[in-house]
């Protein structure tokens, strides 16, 4: 008895990512390829044959047909023809078939040549993330500043296929973008008449997202500084559509409100990829909701792992860092790698919360302008004498030894009383200390310092500035912060926008006021600095951080969505995570153990899903 034949119909409900297959529908399934040649170095299924000059065109056709091959073209070079080989034949078999023919002088594969898609940008040689040939980044600020050849995101090969991501709007939700920078001006989002400055500003609540800090402009350049324009640097995308969304102020600080508004603006106005190079150490339900809203809008959100050198999955959640510790599937969290693909010392990691790694040290990119930092050690030439103007006594210079994770560090400090941190400060005191700085010609100034404070209620530590110089606690002074408090002997960072004080004489001061009752330990100020920014359109700078690693991945996400317009956020995230290259430094410290690889992601294809069968 014969076994009955039945038919089954197998239907694969391919997910959107499989539309890649559509692009190859006309290409036969790949023949087995021998290792004689590197894959991709020649056209599969084709050879070029040179017959002896005595061979006529008709005899060439016959010789090809006998082998089951087909003539594709006469190359118009004596004897040379292009031949399509048998679909079941390997390249070596086809070559051997002609090599055994006495009428054939030469046979070779039909080699593939590619445009040398290396951009002409003047400083491309410093962009190790895109082409790591072991170069030393001479102006690098992170050690080591030399690399391992090949430790890069493999964009060169991807650029052979795509350099223009401008069909995908990328929102840089950050400190704004200097949209006039020479390498960014042509790659900014077209916001039409409503947003003529290529984005919006939720700090100042206007539509001018000019970067007054510098962070956002650097990030934007990594995503999409104009490539191949013989100028400056290039981004992952040579052409881009960058939406500038300012949510961080001149000091680099933002709030839940500004960031969430920024995300919602980006989603509403067509962004398909969001770069979020920010971090905070607390769960924020509103931020979580905003990222879920982005998911509903089919938007990929790429976020920085953070720069605290912590395992953010540590038991108890004490080190949890957000947004990376959120679980939305449209979120990709990025750690930073150095030039040798070791984990950057500052990079956070997390086996369940950090996804991939990308270059994040000694990264050269666009700058908002020229940055400078005025530091002050409160004394001259180690003479131990306070060189600030005082009024009412109390304040003094002294060296303090701080305990840090790297060991004890001795620093210059401004203290009140002079015995701080042993205290106590004086009763009924009005102790003022101030200094005048020249901020002329700057566009932005940011005051930063660390303070340890132990001041009782009823007393206060005040920080003021005064445009024009002089005592900032006299008429015309403006308070930046003031009050009592206790930092528990820890030094806490403070940062303030000092831009309203920009002129040739800007005085900054500290005041300790106390009533007649008991007092406490007082205050210590260390690491005093004023960072200035003078906007221009031609500057570049090197920076380190997971903030710099993140836009590498953001650019890749834009590239993937530009190459595959039908890609959903899920397809994009899958190609980023699953196609990276395994890096030992990331094993067990990220969800994938991989660093992003642009070419592999471009070639990645999801397995088919939704397989069904019907027996008839």
């Amino acid at each position, binding site marked *: 008895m014969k076994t009955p034949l039945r038919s089954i119909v197998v239907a694969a409900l391919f997910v959107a990512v499989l539309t890649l297959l559509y692009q190859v529908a006309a290409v036969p399934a*790949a023949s087995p390829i021998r290792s004689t040649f590197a*894959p991709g170095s020649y056209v599969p299924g084709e050879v070029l044959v040179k017959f002896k000059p005595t061979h006529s065109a008709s005899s060439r056709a016959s010789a090809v047909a006998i082998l089951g091959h087909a003539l594709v073209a006469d190359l118009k070079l004596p004897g040379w023809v292009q031949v399509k080989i048998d679909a079941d034949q390997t390249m070596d078999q086809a070559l051997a078939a002609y090599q055994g023919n006495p009428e054939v002088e030469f046979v070779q594969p039909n080699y593939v040549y590619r445009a040398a898609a290396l951009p002409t940008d003047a400083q491309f040689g410093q962009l190790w993330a895109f082409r790591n040939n072991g170069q030393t980044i001479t102006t690098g600020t992170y050690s080591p500043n030399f690399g391992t050849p090949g430790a890069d995101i493999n964009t060169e090969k991807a650029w052979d296929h795509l350099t223009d991501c401008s069909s995908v709007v990328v929102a840089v939700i950050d400190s704004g973008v200097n949209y006039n920078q020479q390498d960014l001006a042509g790659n900014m989002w077209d916001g039409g008449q409503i947003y003529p400055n290529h984005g919006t500003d939720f700090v100042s609540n206007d539509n001018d997202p000019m970067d007054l800090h510098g962070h956002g402009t650097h990030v934007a350049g990594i995503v999409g500084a104009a490539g191949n324009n013989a100028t400056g640097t290039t981004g992952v995308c040579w052409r881009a559509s960058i939406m500038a969304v300012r949510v961080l102020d001149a000091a680099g600080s933002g709030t839940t409100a500004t960031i969430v508004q920024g995300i919602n603006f980006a989603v509403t106005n067509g962004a398909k990829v969001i770069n979020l190079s920010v971090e905070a150490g607390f769960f924020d339900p509103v931020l979580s909701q905003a990222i879920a809203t982005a998911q509903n809008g089919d938007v990929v959100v790429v976020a920085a792992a953070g720069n605290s050198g912590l395992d953010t999955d540590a038991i108890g959640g004490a080190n949890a860092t957000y947004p990376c510790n959120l679980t939305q599937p449209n979120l990709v969290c990025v750690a930073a790698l150095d030039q040798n693909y070791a984990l950057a010392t500052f990079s956070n990691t997390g086996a369940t919360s950090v996804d991939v790694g990308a270059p994040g040290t000694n990264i050269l990119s666009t700058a908002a302008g020229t940055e400078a930092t005025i530091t002050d050690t409160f004394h001259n030439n180690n003479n131990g004498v306070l060189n600030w103007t005082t009024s009412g006594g109390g304040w003094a210079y002294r060296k303090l030894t701080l305990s840090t994770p790297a060991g004890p560090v001795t620093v210059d400090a401004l203290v009140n009383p002079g015995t701080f941190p042993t205290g106590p400060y004086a009763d009924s005191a009005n102790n003022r200390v101030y200094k005048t700085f020249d901020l002329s010609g700057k566009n932005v100034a940011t005051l930063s310092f660390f303070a340890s404070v132990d001041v009782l209620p009823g007393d206060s530590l005040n920080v003021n500035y005064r445009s024009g110089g002089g005592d900032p606690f006299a008429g015309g002074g403006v308070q930046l912060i003031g009050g009592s408090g206790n930092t528990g002997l820890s030094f806490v960072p403070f940062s303030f926008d000092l831009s309203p004080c920009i002129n040739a004489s800007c005085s900054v001061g500290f005041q300790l006021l106390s009533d007649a009752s008991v007092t406490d330990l007082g205050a210590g100020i260390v690491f005093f600095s004023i960072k200035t920014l003078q906007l221009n359109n031609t500057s570049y700078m090197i920076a380190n951080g997971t903030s710099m690693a993140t836009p590498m991945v953001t650019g890749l996400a834009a590239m993937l969505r530009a190459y595959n317009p039908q890609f959903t956020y899920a397809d994009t995230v899958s190609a980023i995570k699953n196609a990276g290259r395994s890096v030992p430094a990331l094993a067990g410290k990220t969800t994938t153990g991989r660093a992003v690889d642009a070419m592999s992601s471009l070639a990645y294809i999801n397995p*088919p899903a939704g397989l069904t069968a019907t027996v008839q």
Partner: protein
Amino acid sequence: MSISGQPTIVVPYTAGPAAPTSTMVSLITGTYTVTVRAFAVLDPQGGNAGNFSANSQALIVNVP
């Protein structure tokens, strides 16, 4: 498409209104394991030698 005990079958991708991609195969009585993988034009080295996806989840088919 791979059916246990059978030669691999190349099935052109079907897009648009005719989707999903499907094919018909004649089989004798038995139990078969069916998997599908997709083919892309690019390969991870930057060439055009092609690139296969991982296999789909296996489908067990009983032909009575």
